[in-house]
């Protein structure tokens, strides 16, 4: 399902990261970075919540508004019960919608926000996401200090918070349309190969977006997937060709961009809901503002994985939502 938006713009963004992102190749594009995983707080869960709060503080400062000027806050993260978003929202006091689509949460939030702004139901909204390496490892995998062997296909959860301010003021980057993906299950059970789980969802969403908008893949200067990683990227390219006969040329994956894959211990690349927006809001938007690229299709991908279901030998479903971003002419 593709929704066309006539009048929605990402006016500004706020990004905060942890230490690994700070040492990565995109360090200069983030608004703020921390050197540790606690940010002066007692637990990683509280720290993750602070990532959202900080990114919104930075955002509100940039646009010169207070929280009372914001109509709606849409937020999501990986923690059980959306803890990080909920606790950040409890401090902000803005009307709030919590959303979850794993690592596709960022574009999910943007599509919901854009729809409401475009139909003039609300004047503006803030969409935020967060992920924290240590809190995610603790919840989904092993204790942080446990050094179990990791496979090459394992991804490394991004630590960061990213917020975007959406309104109908003609400023920043335009959200031209959004495609809501459907959940796909290709029978993969391997929790250490999330790229393989999510690639078909990304492929289907890209295909449906192009079909609904009657566009060719070349229409976009860049197609960006969320967090497929090195191997997921290869799978997607081949899958797109064999299944939909679409050849991805101007294509990259944010999981392969945020870290230095050769020198940082991140295995197949990054993951986490914050990965795609951190790369897009900083690095990609900068390129767009310089008009090096004008049209970008951002396809955030999420593995809807539950450790309980995996233990119960179930396969892992996945989803992807796409938004089409354009430079304002």
């Amino acid at each position, binding site marked *: 399902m593709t929704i066309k938006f006539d009048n929605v713009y990402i006016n500004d963004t706020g990004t905060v990261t942890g230490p690994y992102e700070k040492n990565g190749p995109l360090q200069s594009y983030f608004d703020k970075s921390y050197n540790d995983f606690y940010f002066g707080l*007692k*637990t990683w869960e509280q720290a993750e919540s602070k990532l959202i709060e900080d990114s919104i503080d930075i955002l509100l400062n940039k646009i010169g508004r207070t929280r009372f000027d914001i109509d709606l806050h849409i937020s999501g993260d990986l923690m059980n019960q959306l803890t990080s978003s909920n606790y950040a929202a409890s401090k902000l006091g803005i009307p709030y919608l919590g959303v979850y689509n794993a690592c596709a949460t960022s574009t999910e939030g943007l599509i919901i926000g854009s729809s409401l702004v475009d139909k003039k139901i609300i004047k503006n909204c803030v969409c935020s996401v967060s992920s924290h390496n240590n809190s995610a490892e*603790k919840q989904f995998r*092993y*204790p*942080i*200090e*446990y*050094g*179990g*062997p*990791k*496979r*090459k*296909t394992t991804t490394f959860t991004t630590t960061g918070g990213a917020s975007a301010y959406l309104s109908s003021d003609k400023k920043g980057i335009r959200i031209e349309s959004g495609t809501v993906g459907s959940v796909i299950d*290709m*029978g*993969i059970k391997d929790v250490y*190969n999330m790229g*393989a789980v999510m690639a*078909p969802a990304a492929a289907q969403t890209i295909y449906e977006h192009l079909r609904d908008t009657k566009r060719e893949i070349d229409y976009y200067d860049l197609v960006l997937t969320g967090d497929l990683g090195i*191997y997921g990227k*290869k*799978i997607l390219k*081949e*899958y797109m060709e*064999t*299944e939909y006969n679409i050849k991805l040329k101007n294509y990259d994956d944010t999981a392969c961009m945020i870290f230095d894959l050769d020198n940082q211990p991140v295995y197949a690349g990054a993951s986490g809901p914050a990965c795609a927006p951190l790369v897009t809001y900083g690095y990609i938007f900068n390129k767009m503002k310089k008009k090096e690229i004008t049209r970008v299709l951002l396809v955030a991908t999420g593995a809807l994985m539950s450790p309980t279901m995996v233990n119960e030998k179930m396969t892992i479903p996945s989803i992807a939502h796409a938004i089409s971003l354009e430079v304002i002419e």
Partner: protein
Amino acid sequence: MEKNKYKQLVDKHTPKENRMYNGMIAFLSGGLMGVLGQFILQLYSYYLDIPTKEAGTYMIITLIFIGCLLTCFGFFDKWVNFCKAGLFIPITGFAHAMMSAALDYKKEGLVTGIGASMFKLAGAVIIFGVVSAYVFGLLRLIIFGG
């Protein structure tokens, strides 16, 4: 695309793990671990005059302590990650699993955190250790008469 066809595609793009290399590293580091254990055992039995049987217990306790301490210092996970089975099959791996879980959950309280979750990883080792000890002990009793 059908699921089995997709699985083939995934397998094609999934890198192979270097089993030979990992095995060699585990063999060497595990061997060194054994040498260290033997060294501590000799140290206790010869220099501290502890009977060898008892010195074995002290040696194990020492290794557990080292494993736990280095886990707390925050770099033992990198060693285990590199040495793999060489470090997590010996008693150090068990200590490491317990300690890392305890460190993660200590913020959730003494009883509800450490107490409830310390055995999250190591619990399986204990359960199956006890069960297999029982089964093999029984077999030994039946076959060899104790």
